[in-house]
């Protein structure tokens, strides 16, 4: 029970407080910490830093961990924090007005100034500059963490970036800007004014290397083991940590499970496909923990296997496999038409194609209105897609509006395999162009 809580807290924490860092992340964190502590300690040592890395590799983790360390080191007096943090996200705070208001709000919250929501954009800009000047006088500093940095560097006016970086240039301001981005060319998309003010310091967080799969520190199985490990030490354990015997049993069973050859092979396949990023591994660990919570006792191998299998991202297949027979017929009709060269089909064409099976003596013969219903259901499930977005609103001519199928033949084939009772005509109809009529009477 407590183990569940502990592990879930660790895996679901947005700031990643409990996660262990792999060596590359540790190195990145050390570098960033060094930069930021220079900024905090020496006046006038402003810095702007960029961390580039693919999705799920741990950039936010590094930034949050560094910020937490700065907090622990410098904010010894709870009434008077020395380092304040402002966190922005390019997805949420993309508009200038929103972003500046958010900056003002977080600054006010960090340094105990009252915040007024009705201030305008110009006021917030002035406030930012004034606040930085005041903070310098009090020997305090601010760290701005900008997630999804490339969304702040949109093509038009990059006001937020310009103002932040310009404010850093003023004399003796103690502030730092840390940007996190997935694009490797994020520096080129910055405007020339902004780019000139940016100090081109950056760090790259690389993905898990396939060659280092079995590496004890940074390989995939060891990372999984670290994510699932429970603390084992006797003394100094917090009261809500599970007891040591249980923790030991848990850890040993996790280790045993991760020695299993098939599981390792599956994990290796996942990594080859690129689904082995640390974020994905965290998802797998979470799924395994959830499954293990259903029965008492330590984590067993089947939980991990099931979790890994669920991570395979076969959602299209699953969605297709759960359709009704008529929908499947319509879908397969669309695929056949595509194969024959029709880029777009419409309902009439689909009905004509489906009607060709009427002469094949099978049980699934439906009327046109039923087929129309099936067509709508496929549209709702996004397996068929209107090519022209306006067609959705024109209800009168929907039979003739072009649609395109969003699933591929192998996926549908697999879905048909997966499905329980699938008429063989359907499989054959999908697989071959010309279907002989007579053979089905005997099957």
């Amino acid at each position, binding site marked *: 029970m407590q183990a569940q809580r502990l592990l879930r807290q660790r895996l679901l924490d947005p700031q990643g407080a409990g996660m262990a860092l792999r060596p590359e992340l540790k190195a990145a964190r050390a570098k960033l910490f060094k930069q930021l502590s220079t900024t905090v300690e*020496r006046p006038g*040592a402003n810095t702007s830093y960029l961390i580039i890395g693919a999705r799920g590799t741990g950039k936010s983790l590094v930034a949050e961990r560094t910020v937490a360390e700065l907090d622990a080191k410098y904010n010894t007096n709870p009434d008077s924090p020395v380092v304040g943090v402002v966190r922005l996200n390019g997805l949420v705070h993309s508009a200038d007005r929103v972003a500046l208001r958010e900056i003002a709000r977080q600054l006010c919250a960090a340094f105990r100034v009252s915040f007024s929501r009705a201030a305008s954009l*110009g006021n917030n800009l002035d406030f930012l500059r004034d606040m930085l000047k005041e903070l310098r006088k009090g020997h305090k500093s601010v760290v701005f963490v900008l997630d999804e940095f490339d969304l702040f560097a949109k093509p038009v*006016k990059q006001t937020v970036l310009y103002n932040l970086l310009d404010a850093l240039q003023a004399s003796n301001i103690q502030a730092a800007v840390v940007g996190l981005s997935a694009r490797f*060319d994020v520096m080129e998309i910055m405007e020339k004014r902004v780019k*000139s003010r940016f100090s081109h310091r950056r760090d790259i967080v690389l993905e898990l290397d396939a060659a280092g799969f079995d590496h004890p520190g940074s390989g995939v199985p060891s990372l999984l083991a670290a994510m699932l490990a429970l603390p084992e030490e006797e003394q100094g354990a917090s009261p809500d940590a599970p007891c040591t015997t249980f923790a030991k049993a848990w850890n040993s069973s996790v280790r045993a499970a991760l020695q299993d050859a098939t599981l390792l092979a599956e994990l290796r396949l996942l990594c080859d*496909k690129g689904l082995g990023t640390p974020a994905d591994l965290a998802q797998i660990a979470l799924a395994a923990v959830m499954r293990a919570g259903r029965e008492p006792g330590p984590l067993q191998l089947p939980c991990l296997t099931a979790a890994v299998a669920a991570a395979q991202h076969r*959602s299209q297949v699953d969605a297709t496999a759960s359709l009704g027979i008529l929908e499947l017929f319509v879908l397969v009709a669309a695929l056949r038409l595509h194969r024959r060269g029709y880029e777009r089909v419409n309902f009439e064409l689909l009905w004509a194609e489906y009607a060709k099976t009427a002469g094949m003596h099978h049980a699934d013969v439906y009327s046109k209105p039923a087929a129309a219903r099936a067509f709508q259901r496929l549209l709702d499930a996004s397996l068929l897609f209107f090519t022209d977005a306006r067609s959705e609103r024109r209800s009168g001519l929907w039979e003739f509006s072009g649609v395109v199928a*969003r699933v591929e033949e192998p996926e549908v084939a697999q879905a048909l395999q997966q499905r329980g009772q699938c008429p063989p005509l359907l499989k054959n109809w999908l697989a071959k162009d010309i279907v002989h009529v007579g053979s089905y009477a005997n099957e």
Partner: protein
Amino acid sequence: MDNQQANAEEASTSDSTPSKKRREKVALSARRPRAKATLNFGSDAEKGSEPASQGAQAGASVNDVAAEMNARTDEAAEQPLQQTATKGTRVRQRAQGKRTSPKPQLQPRTRAATQQLESQQLRPRPAPAITAPATPAKPVDGHTYRVGDCAFVITDENWEDDGIDEEEQVCEVCLKTDKKRGRRLIDLLECDRCLCGYHLDCLDPPLASVPDGDWRCPRCKAGGAAVATAEAGVPQRVGRRGAQQRPRGQTDRQKFLAGKLELGRIEALWRQGKETFFRCRWYCRPEDTMEGRQDHHTAREVFLQEVTDVNDVQTLLRPATVCAPSQLQDHPGDSVFVCDHMYHAGCAVFKALDDSDDGDVADISDDDSEADEGDTFKPVRASRGHGGGRRRCLQGGEEWASGRRKETLGLGAAGIPASIRARDRTPLETARAALALRSGPGVMPCRETERADIARFVEEAVAAGEDCLGQCLYVAGVPGTGKTATVQEVMRQLRARMDEGDLPAFRFVEINALRLPSPQHAYVQLYRALTGKHASPATAAEQLEAMYSGGAHGSSAPKRVTVVLVDEMDLLITKKQQVLYNLCEWPTRAGARLAVIGIANTLDLPERLMPRVASRLGGRRVVFQPYKRDQLKKIIEQRLSDAGVASVFHENAIKYAAGKVAAVSGDARRVLELCRKAAEIAEEEQQQPSADVPCAASTAAGPADGAAAPSTPPKSPGAAAAAGDEHRRTGVVVMGHVDAAIREMFRAVHMQLLSNACRLEKILLAALVMETRATGRSDAVLRGVFTRMDQLCAARQEALPYCGDVISAAVRLGAKRLVLAGPGAHRLSMRLALNVSTDDVVTALKADTSIEWMSQTNL
């Protein structure tokens, strides 16, 4: 009595401080808690209210004691508080002179500790002479005090002036004042902590010259007694003297540090009846603050407080000087103190004092004095939404807007952190600090002609006064060439000249288009700067139009020339270009007295505007060319030599960095950052004298190596490393460091990302390359790429990829921007295009080791 005082204050014109302080002085002094107070300030108000008795007592005692002394020449009577800053080290300078030596010849950089005399000229109390209405000076007991001076103030009732004027510092070791070697006088060095003197020779080991920076005597280093309080200093000396028991009193400085005297700054002087009062703002000692005296507080450190009191001028004892830490060597004498922080006793917070605050106040006071000229503008601090019109909503709440922000604990420092005070920096650290990107007040090198052009333009515009017509200047240049900095420098110089009276009065308004919510808000800024009122953009535009179309003698025409700086002008371009048109057209009106300086990046901005705007704007242009290599070199060298660390960078390193940046962009910021990063790398190396040296030790670098592994392996020691060793020890930045910095900062990262991609992504990239090559188009549909992948995998006995995985891989590559991918919803119909060069991809793939067959593929 308090009412009278208050009335007297309001009547005085000599007040130069903001008006809010007046009302708070009594209240504050009453309720302020004192942690370690040795004095009771609360009683000062009463003291101020009984000037007659107090003054009589003080005067009497002073006169009695002073009668025993000889008259001496007046030395430190009038010292203005601010002097121009001189560059140099922080060596404290004391005049080495006997009583008869002439005053102005202060020998530079010596630390001779002969006490300078505060003389007391004995005269009966003269009638106070008010010299000028602005700064009345009050001679009291032979010293003339002006507003802004600092002085010792007697607050003790039982004050007895020991009248120690002549204090000769003796060396603690040899107990002699002078020591000669041959014909030269050996300098006396003053310890920064206990203020005792030591001959350079008497130290062990003997020093050859006065050391830079702080110096502590051996006794303090060994953890000696507390700082120069009287109790610590005197008994020891008396004890050691033995037979030579000369009764030694205490100097003013020692008395202050012991708590018997107070130090204050005169804020206002006025007469009331027969007596003269002054309002003083107290300084406090480090012991009086919440955190007490810390190690990093020097002996002469005081903190400015917010508390003010009104006292009779009779309580003034002697003048003193309080200066900034960097100016310490300019002020000889013993009664010199250092103050760089302000202490607010109510909240127990420190705030650094700032020179630039005066600059802000000066802008407002421009308008203040304009009111005296009978202008129609109402100059008011714009933060108060006063009289008429709706209230503006400012950020930060009421306390921010009213300027009483110092009272929040959240903003001030609970104690001065010791890291700020750490004075012993290595040369590399100092170099790094000197190279930081900051727009500090300094003279920009290599921009003399441009500066002269701009200065000439502004001077002509200002001097023309009423005839100022149609003056627009356009400044163009790529980012990082110093346009804004040069214009601000010019304005600073001209403002200094205006203060001295050389130029007629003018006003400077700065508008930055990227700080405005919309281009029309430029009107709002201009209007606010001219009138101090806030209005919406449309209203402001109307008002400005009305103002400028009134003609030369219209009622609402401005009386001063206004110089407007429009930064990032290309962002003010709207569809109809109305804002720019107005800004360029208003200067041409009669009586507008407006001059506009526009800054942008493109040289041909006026040509891209409408003809009517272009003709007005494009008249005069100043072009800032990108910096050349020599100029960049000069910039770096000047920055380093200003900080005194010119030898930290090897000359080749500077040349190399300058050359690299000049070839690409000529951006001054870039070269400064590059050198700063190189210094950081050098510093890191210096701190890790182990074998794990990063490849920064290698000097000449070839082109960026293709599949560089993310973690650099330690290089085996070679000839380059041996040279690197030596440089590492001495801490000099060489070309190798600059090279490593260039690689780290400016190298494209896509090669690393390409080699780090997963297996499926690499196969996808290979298939994409093949597809684009086969079709001859630059982009491909994923379906075609997928078929090619199938073929590739079938031929190489690789597992056939599943289409869903391929789509996810393509989307991931698109997120990294290694390829440009359409939206993932299109699935196999999405279009892909390579975002990096094909050769790079091919190189990366061929060098890849994880996929064995890739190197033989015909890509």
